[in-house]
Structure formats: structure tokens, C-alpha cells
């Protein structure tokens, strides 16, 4: 027994550690007085240790020990310790780390630095990791809620700025609404199968011991709830308003890591329910559902990209493009194959880095009132700010899916799995929308490189620590582009 406890403690170290430390950090906030840098460093340390431990478990293949675990003395079987979960642990951890590093000088510039910012980011990350480690629908829901509630607060972090408060309120109201759908769906799935544990659900479905109608209604409702969280059409409408209103570094965080977490929840549903149910006798309803998802994914890509064309505000353009990227990731869920999940995961990983990087650049260029966000303010940037301009090239080209950057391989892999699954038309829609996206990403590049500066951005300085964020995310974007096989092989191996 003691042996098992130790084993589970070491397997679950990343998530236990970050959850405990997150709570500790909140208490720490109360006693450190006016000194903010301690909390900043503390948060960075927590995240680094989490990333390293999750990375070590991945690297040493320690997650295989989970198979030897007969009982789960701590989590009672609600936590899963598989390789996928650790990959996402690392992704979420890096995203949070990059956000916090870039945030300090951003908040300082906005003259609005408070300590709770760092603890909130850490807590949101622990919520995401809870999703990654969930072996149970209920834990997944709690993780999603935990993450969302911290996001509501973070979106309204600039509480003296009307746009930020409006974003938080919108996000909260609609988010709560969507959580209702999600919970109702989970209840119906419980009603259909009599269990909330993923493993038992798939066993029951395989054994045909379930109620089909409730299951389908339940999955539909869960999908509606999760579509809201990843901002898929037509539940995307909150996203641009929120991403635009929220503090820029936070927009970067919640549009990337938050989306990746919700995508992981979708993968869990796909893996444990859809994939199993499609092999039963009543598969035609699941296939219908799959087709509906395909339509939603196509509409998300098109709407996101087409709307992004019309934007003249860089932050809003990135917000819409983030909607479109949710559509690409959904393609992997539509495919409903191990390849598709690996594709969606790879895309999520790549997307996190390139999008956080571009939001960090926007954050660096805006002034203390959140102005200077228009395309025209970026003209001639390559002369005034060559480092930032070069970084932006990497991120934009990768977002546009141009080889050899990571975004291309993400798209390619997703397209390939969709074709494998028989969704040629969806791939063609994906290709058309990628083409549309090339236009607005390159439009920004044309402003940066091909136009002369009209007015100087006076208020900002060269990035200090944020430069580190930029370098890391650019490096990861390029490296995942040149050596994508490491991550892809790992994902396929772990499927």
C-alpha cells in the first residue's frame, strides 16, 4: 500500500505539485507585502519544476509504471497517467511559463501589476493539467471549470479598463451557459452507461450495455459545451471580443493553452466514446455526429479566416485567426482515428508556441493604454525594431502554414488524416481557408517589411524578459518545423 502511494505520488508529481504550489502561492501572495518579484520568481520556479518533472517522466518512460499500479490509492482511479497526459503537461507548462515571463513588463507598462496575476496563471495551468490527467468525465469537467473560472478573472484583470471588464463579463456569462450544456451532457452519458470513468464507459459501449439515445444526446451536449471552449463556429462569437478585450498576454494564454486543453478534452471524448461507439451496431448516429462536426469544423475555418481578412487591428486579427485554428484542430477530432488525435495534438502544440509568440509581440508593441494595435502602426517595423520584425516573420509564416515552419507540418498531418478518414471535401475546405489566411498574415508582413514607417511607436521599449519568450517560442516553432518527427513519433507511439 505504502509502495503504491509512493508510486502514485511520483507518477502524479507534476499535477500534485502544481496544484499544491498554486494554492501555496495564493497564501504566499498575502504575506509577501509589496514585493512582487518574489511571486514572479516563485511562479516561474513552480512552472519550471512542473515542466521538468513531466518532461522527465516522458523522457524516462516512467509513465509505463502506471500499468503496474493495481490500485490508485490517492486518486481512486480518477487520474490517468499516460504519456499523452505528460506531453500536454509540458505544453501547458511551457505556455504558462512563456506567458508569465512576457507578462511582467507588460503589466508594468500598463501600470497595473498585481501579485495575483502569477498565482492565477499557475492555477489555470493546474486546471488544464487536471484535464490532461483526467480518467473520468467528472474530473475533466472540474478541470475545465477550474481553468475557465481563472480565465474569467484573468480576462478582466485590467479591471479599470472598460474593454477588459466587458470581455470578462461576456466570457463569464456565455462560458457559464456552455458549462451548463457540458454538465447536462455528462449527466446524460452517465444515464446512458451508469458510469463516469472513461475506461468503464468504453467497456460498456463495447459490450452494448448502454442506452443509445441518451448517449448520443449526451455526446452532442458535451460537444456543444466543448465547442464553446475551443471557440468553434457558431460558438465562437465570444472569442474575438474576449481576446480583444483581455490583457494581450492573457489573450495569448487563453487562446492557446486554453484551447489546447479543450481540444484534449475532445480527444478524450473521441478516444473513449466516439471511437468505441462507432464500432458498435448503432454506428450510423455517431457517423452523423461526425459529419456534423465536420461541417462545424469547415465553417469554423472559413468564418474565422474570412472574418480575419476584414480586420485592421492586429490583436483582433489574431483573435479571429485563433478561431480558424480551432477549426483545423477539430479536423483531427472529426477523423476519429489515433492518427487524427496525434495530428490534433501536434497542431495544438505547434499552435501554442506560434500564437503565444505573436501575442507577445503585440503586447510588446502596445502602449500603456492598450493602443497602437492597428496594421498601420506596424508599418516599417523592420527598420525600427528589427528583432521583433524577424520574430514576427517566423510566427506569421508558421501560422499561415508555410513550409518549413511547424505550422505547415501541423496542417499537413491534419489534412492527411482527414483524407485518410474519407473527408476529402473537408480537406479542400481546409486548403481554401489556408489560402485565405495566407492573405491576412502576409498583409501584416507587407506592412512590417514593405511599407515605410508612418508614425513611430514611442511608448514602448525593446523587450527585456519578453525577448526570452519570443526567442523560445520562435525556436520551438522553427525546431518543430525542421524536426517534427520527434514529437509526431512520440504521439503516435503513445496513442
Amino acid at each position, binding site marked *: 500500500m505504502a509502495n503504491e502511494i509512493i508510486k502514485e505520488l511520483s507518477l502524479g508529481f507534476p499535477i500534485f505539485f502544481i496544484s499544491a504550489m498554486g494554492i501555496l502561492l495564493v497564501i504566499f501572495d498575502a504575506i509577501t507585502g509589496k514585493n512582487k518579484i518574489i511571486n514572479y520568481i516563485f511562479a516561474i520556479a513552480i512552472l519550471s519544476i512542473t515542466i521538468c518533472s513531466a518532461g522527465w517522466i516522458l523522457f524516462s518512460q516512467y509513465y509505463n509504471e502506471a500499468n503496474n499500479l493495481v490500485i490508485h490509492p490517492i486518486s481512486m482511479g480518477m487520474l490517468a497517467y499516460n504519456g499523452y497526459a505528460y506531453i500536454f503537461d509540458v505544453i501547458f507548462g511551457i505556455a504558462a511559463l512563456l506567458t508569465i515571463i512576457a507578462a511582467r513588463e507588460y503589466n508594468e507598462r500598463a501600470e497595473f501589476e498585481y501579485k495575483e496575476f502569477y498565482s492565477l496563471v499557475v492555477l489555470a495551468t493546474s486546471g488544464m493539467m487536471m484535464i490532461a490527467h483526467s480518467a473520468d468525465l467528472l474530473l475533466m469537467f472540474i478541470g475545465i471549470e477550474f481553468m475557465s473560472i481563472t480565465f474569467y478573472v484573468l480576462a478582466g484583470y485590467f479591471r479599470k479598463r472598460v474593454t477588459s471588464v466587458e470581455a470578462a463579463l*461576456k466570457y463569464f456569462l*456565455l462560458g457559464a451557459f*456552455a458549462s451548463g*450544456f457540458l454538465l447536462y451532457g455528462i449527466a446524460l452519458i*452517465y*444515464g446512458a452507461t*451508469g*458510469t463516469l470513468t472513461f475506461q468503464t464507459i468504453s467497456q460498456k459501449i463495447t459490450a452494448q450495455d448502454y*442506452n443509445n*439515445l*441518451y448517449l*448520443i*444526446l449526451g455526446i*452532442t451536449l458535451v*460537444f*456543444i459545451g466543448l465547442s*464553446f471552449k475551443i471557440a468553434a463556429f*457558431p*460558438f465562437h*462569437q*465570444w472569442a*474575438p*471580443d474576449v481576446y480583444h478585450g483581455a490583457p494581450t498576454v492573457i489573450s495569448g494564454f487563453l487562446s492557446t493553452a486554453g484551447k489546447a486543453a479543450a481540444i484534449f478534452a475532445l480527444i478524450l471524448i473521441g478516444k473513449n466514446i466516439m471511437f468505441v461507439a462507432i464500432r458498435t451496431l448503432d454506428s450510423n*448516429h455517431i457517423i*452523423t*455526429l461526425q459529419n*456534423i462536426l465536420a461541417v462545424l469544423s469547415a465553417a469554423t475555418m472559413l*468564418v474565422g479566416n*474570412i*472574418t*480575419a*481578412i*476584414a480586420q485592421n487591428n492586429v490583436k483582433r486579427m489574431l483573435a479571429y485567426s485563433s478561431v480558424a485554428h480551432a477549426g483545423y484542430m477539430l479536423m483531427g477530432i472529426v477523423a476519429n482515428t489515433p492518427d487524427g488525435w496525434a495530428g490534433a495534438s501536434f497542431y495544438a502544440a505547434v499552435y501554442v508556441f506560434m500564437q503565444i509568440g505573436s501575442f507577445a509581440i503585440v503586447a510588446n508593441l502596445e502602449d500603456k493604454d492598450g493602443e497602437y494595435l492597428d496594421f498601420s502602426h506596424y508599418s516599417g517595423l523592420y527598420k525600427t525594431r528589427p528583432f521583433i520584425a524577424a520574430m514576427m516573420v517566423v510566427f506569421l*509564416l508558421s501560422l499561415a502554414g*508555410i*513550409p*518549413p515552419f511547424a505550422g*505547415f*507540418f501541423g496542417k*499537413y*498531418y491534419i*489534412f*492527411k488524416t482527414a*483524407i485518410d478518414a474519407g473527408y*476529402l471535401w473537408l*480537406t*479542400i475546405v481546409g*486548403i481554401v481557408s489556408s*489560402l485565405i489566411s*495566407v*492573405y491576412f498574415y*502576409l498583409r501584416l508582413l*507587407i506592412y512590417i*517589411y*514593405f*511599407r515605410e514607417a508612418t508614425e513611430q511607436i514611442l511608448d514602448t521599449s525593446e523587450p527585456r524578459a519578453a525577448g526570452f519568450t519570443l526567442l523560445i517560442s520562435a525556436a520551438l516553432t522553427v525546431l518543430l518545423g525542421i524536426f517534427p*518527427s520527434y514529437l*509526431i*513519433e512520440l504521439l*503516435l507511439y503513445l496513442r
Partner: protein
Amino acid sequence: MLIAVLSGFIVACIVPLIFKLNRKVAGALLSILPLSLFIFYLQFLPNVLAGEKILTTFYWIPSLKINLNFMIDGLNLLFALIISGIGFVVYLYASAYLAKSEKIVPFYIYISIFMASMLGVVTCNNTLALFVFWELTSISSFLLIGFNHEQERSRYAALQSLLVTAGGGLALLASVIIIGQIAGTYEISQMSAFHSNLINNALYPSILILFLIGTFTKSAQFPFHFWLPNAMEAPTPVSAYLHSATMVKAGVFLMIKFLPILGGTELWMWLLGGFGGWTMLMASTMALKQTDLKRLLAYSTVSVLGTLTMLIGLGGEKAISAMIIYLFAHSLYKGALFLTAGIIDHETGTRDIRNISGLRKYLPITALIGVLAALSGMGIIPFIGFIGKEMLYETALLSGQYSTLFITISVISAVNIFAVMAYSGILPFFGEYKSPSEHVHEAPFQMTSGPVAFALLGLVSGLFAGSTVDGLTNKALQSIFPSASHHLALFHGFNLPLLLSALTIVVGLIFVLNRKSLVEFIEKIRIPEYFFPSKWYDYIFNGTLSFAEIQTKFLQNGHLRYYIFTILALFILLVGGSFFGFNTSGSILNAFAISIERSIAGIDIYDISMLITVLIASVFALLSQGRLSAIASMGIVGALISLIYIIYGAPDLAMTQLSIETLSVILFVLVLYKLPRFFTYSKLKTRIRDLVIALAFGSIFTMIIIFVSAYGKFDTGLSEYFAQTSYLIGHGKNIVNVILVDFRGFDTMGEITVLSIAAVGVYSLLRLRKQGGEQ
């Protein structure tokens, strides 16, 4: 071989460094790169001539089957030599052409990236890696076209070319993936074994069309040809290199490569032959009326690309052999002509052929190049262009039942091209001296040496065709048709092609001498604007932009109520849809019947009267004009529902319901006190819409509940457990209470804690606010 391809990318990184070290010799230094690449590829010549194929393998992303495998066969080698050879000339040329430009550094960066990716395209054996290089050529072309980015026109042309070619590239990717799925391999050299699988597959038409969208956009075939003339905004060395000699031929290259894989069908022949033939005819006619030297050449390039496509469409051994010669000849003479156009532009400051003539006095070497190259382009004996044209005629004559059509358009186009070549390569140098600039003098050695070499090569390879180009072109042909061979010779005897050549020259001369009236005649042909594909591009482009704006206003209006509206609408669609998707309309009726049957059994007058009161109260709430009355009637509804709980024996639930109802009515009234008066009422249309949504939403939930209560198929494990154990273990008779305080006692404690923390929070907020108010 991998290093050879990647060397361009590496050199691109160190270009700024080289220019920092020594600006003067940097250009010349950099041209060592293409020269050494040329020599590198030349060393494969003996092996290739001996009939060998050289394959190298490098695993890049094995899990996605993307590998950097390179292959050298006759065709690949021919292209690689053309690319590196012309590259050398262009590097050298640009070092003088752009010597004074600030942007010479980015130029060399971009063009090195381009050359490396182009070499990748033509030597890569893996279609996916090929696609990567393919898109990189589009990107570098975009950067080079937008080189003079101060001008709006340059930016427009750059973006246009990128959208068209990169978009086509994506279509190519789709087709390559499908081919890979069917054939099970992404290696070009292994694909031809699956020829019959591919062409008999149901997806063959979509594969072919996607493939051709990719190659047609790159090779500027109708209806995607319009980007190429616009791309002439690029500096002249770029036009010579990318937009005539190499990049635009990538599409042609891929079409020949895929001839044994996808070709040999009716569809192939008609799509390629038709579009190619039409492009050839149309572009050569449009070329006649151009006055800008570079646009003149651009249209003739489009026409030649059309010819090449048509020949691939015809697809026999003869056609491919003609195509290879034609392509080789074109690369030489068009490269030379572009470079002379660059010299003319550089020296006189204009490219308008109406403003320049008689330049041979000051530009003797350039004049020589121009004339020699133009003669090859015109197809005059003994230049290589002549052999190419003869072979074209021969193929067209042999093309079966439609040979009359093909030979007619070939001859017309050849006549047009004849005239265009004369306009661009001969007329500027002869006649009375005319130039807008006064300081016209011969270009430096770096700029003239390359074109001289091209022009002479055109002559030599024509004169001694049998002993020079014969070997390599034969091997190129054999990489498509392993058993075929051709023997090049200047003179094939007196036959029909020769006669047609003579006819071409005669009519062409008439065209040349009567340029003005010819242009007037062509100008008279008025085609409505909306027939031009370039206009389609603009329409689609602007249409997408305005659609984007309209739908943003519609979908993204910022009002939360509309967002909720869409969410509800989709919920109704999805959940209602999946509910009815079960074909349960019968069972829903059945469920209704069952639940009514059950309810009627125990129903009495209290139930009915209460039900009626609830209904009346809710309708009243809907219709009421004021807030207070609406809230009051909602309160009635709540109170009655708690009565129902009492009747059915759940007094605790009734208590809760009643207290919550009372509390919410009180809260409402308190809030009401602060709210402004209600003046605007929603319109009838809005009300109807809301009614529909509300009804649909409500009835879906009602149906689900009726269904559940009628059939009750929910998993019963938990409820049975509670029913059995709550008295025995929990020692309580009320299951709900036992669950709350016993089975999930910790949860309840947690809830209480959370609530009290929240209360403390609210209290402290209120106190803060009070203090703030006092201040």
C-alpha cells in the same frame, strides 16, 4: 546531394556577412555558388549518359513519409543544369545591375533561397518534400516581385502571384496526398508502377484536376496566366531567372514527371492539350500589342509555356522529345532576351519599345545578343529554336484526328512569336537612333558575358545539335519513355514542317513590318472585361473582402443576446436533430401516451386547477407591460410549483423552492427599484423570433423529460443502491437527506465552506465600497 540543395539556404544566411566584408566583390564571390553547383551537377553527366539513375536517401520525417530523397536522371539533370547555369549568369549580372541599389543584400538572400528550393523541386524524389520546395519557390518569388515595395503596383503583383501560385501549391498538396494514399508511396520513381490503379480510381478526375491546378498556376496557364505579366514588376534579372527560365517551368517539369503516372488518358489529353493550346494562342496574340519590353517577353513566355503544356498533353514520345528541345531552346533565348531588356532599361531608362530604336550604335554587344537570341526564338535556321519549332510542327501534324486544329494554332502562335521576338530583340537596335536618355553606353562585362554565352550556345547547339545536346536530351526523354530515343539534326529533308516554317517566316515578316496596323487591329477586338481571368481574380478578391465585412457585422455585432441566440439555435438544431434522428417520432408519441396514461390515473381537481393557474400566470408574465407585474406572476408560478411538491410528498423540496422563490422575488424587486423606467418594447418581429426559439428550446427539453419518464431507461445502479442502503447504512428515511448529509457529507461540507467564503468575500467587497463611497 542534400548538401548541394541546402547550400543555397546556408549561403542565404551569410550573404549579409559577405557584403559587410567587401561590398565590391561580394556579388562576384556569391556567383561562385551557382557555378560550383553547376559543376557539381555536371559531374553526374557521364553516369546519366551511361543510363544510370542516382538516388540518395535522407530520412527527415519518416512517420509522415516526408523524406529528403533525391534522384538524378536525365530530365532532372537537364533541369538542374539549366537552373544552376542560368543562376550563375544571373548572379553575375545582378552584381552590376544592382550595384548601386541598397537592396542588393536582400536580393542575394532571396535569390539564393529561390535557387536552392528550385533545385530541390527538380531533384527531389519525394512528393511531399517536393511540395515544401515548391512553396518555397513561391515565397521567394513573392519576395522578389515585391522587391521595389515602395510601389503599390509591386505589392499588388507580389501578393497576386503568391496567392495564385501558393494556392495552386496547396491544391497540388491535396492531389499528392491522395496519390500517396492510393499508390502507398510518396516516391516519384516508384509511382509509375501504380499507373493503372491511379487512372482507374474513382478519384482520378479530382486527383488530376487538383494536380493541374497546382501546375497550371505555377506555369501560368489559362486561366491563371495573369500573374506572370504582372510579375514583371520584379528586377530584370529576377524576371529572366524566375519568370522565364526556371520557376514557371516547375509546373511543366512536374507535368512531364507525372506523365507516366497520371497521363495517357482522354482527360489528361484534353485538359492539357486544350488549356495549353488555348494559352499558347491567346498569350501570343496578346503579346503583339504590348509596348513594354518586359511584358512583351512575359506574354511570349506564357505562350511558350502553353506550347509545352500542349505537347505534354499530346503525350507521345515525339511530343515529349519536341517539348524537351523546345524548353531547352526557350530557356536560352528568353534568358538572353530578358537580360538584354535589362541592359536597355538600365542604360536608356525606359522599356517602352516605341521610344527606343537604333541602339546598336551605342550598345553593339547587346545588339548582337539581342539579334542572336531573337533569331533563335523566331525559329530561324540554324539556331536551336528552329529544331524545336520543326519538332513542334511534326508532333502537331501527327496528333491524330485533331491534327488540323493543333497545327493551325501552332502555326498562328509561331507567327505571333516570330513578330514578338523581332519587336523585342531586333527592332530596338535598328533604325534611327532614339532614346530618352543621353548617356547610353555599353554595359559592363558582368552583364554582357552571360547573355553572350546564352546566345552563342543557342547557335552552337543548333548547328551541332547531334553532337552537343543530343545525348542529354535523349536521356531526359528516356526518363519518361525508357525505350525511346531521338536524333537531333538541323535538316530533316524537304517536308511539310519545313514548308510551314517558311510560311511562318513570311507571315511573320509581314507582321513585323506592319506593327502599327497590326496593333490597331488587335486593339479593335473588344472583349468584355468580365471574360478576363485577371478580373475574376479581382472580383473574387474584393468579393471575399466585402463578404468578410458583411458577415463580421452580422455575426460579430458585440451583443451578447445575439450570441446566445445563435448558441440556442444550434442547440435546437443539433439536439433536436439527433433526437429525431432516431426516428423516434412514433416512440415520442408513444411516450406521450404512456406519460398521459400514468398521470391521468392519479390526477384530481387540485392538480388541474393548479396547472391552469400556472399557465395563466406564465402567459400573464409574458404579456405584462411592467416589470413588477411580470415578476409577481413569475412568483405565482414558483409558489404553485412548490405546492405541487407538497402534494406529491416532498415537503423539504417545497420548502427550498418556496424560500428560493421568495428570495428571488425580493431580490428582483430590490433591483427593480434601481432600474430606469421601461420605455422601449421589442418589435413584433423580434418577439416572434424569440417565441419560436423559446418554444423550440422548451419543447425539446419537455420531450426529453417525457421520454425519460415514460421509458426510464437511465442506468439504475445508483438509485437502487441509495434506495437499498439509505435506511440500513444511513439510518434515515428520507433518501435525499441521507445523500446530502451522509453519503456525500464531505461535499456538503465543502459547499458550505465555499458559500461562507463567498459570503465573507461579498461582505468585504461591500465594506470596501462603503469606504470608497465615504472617501
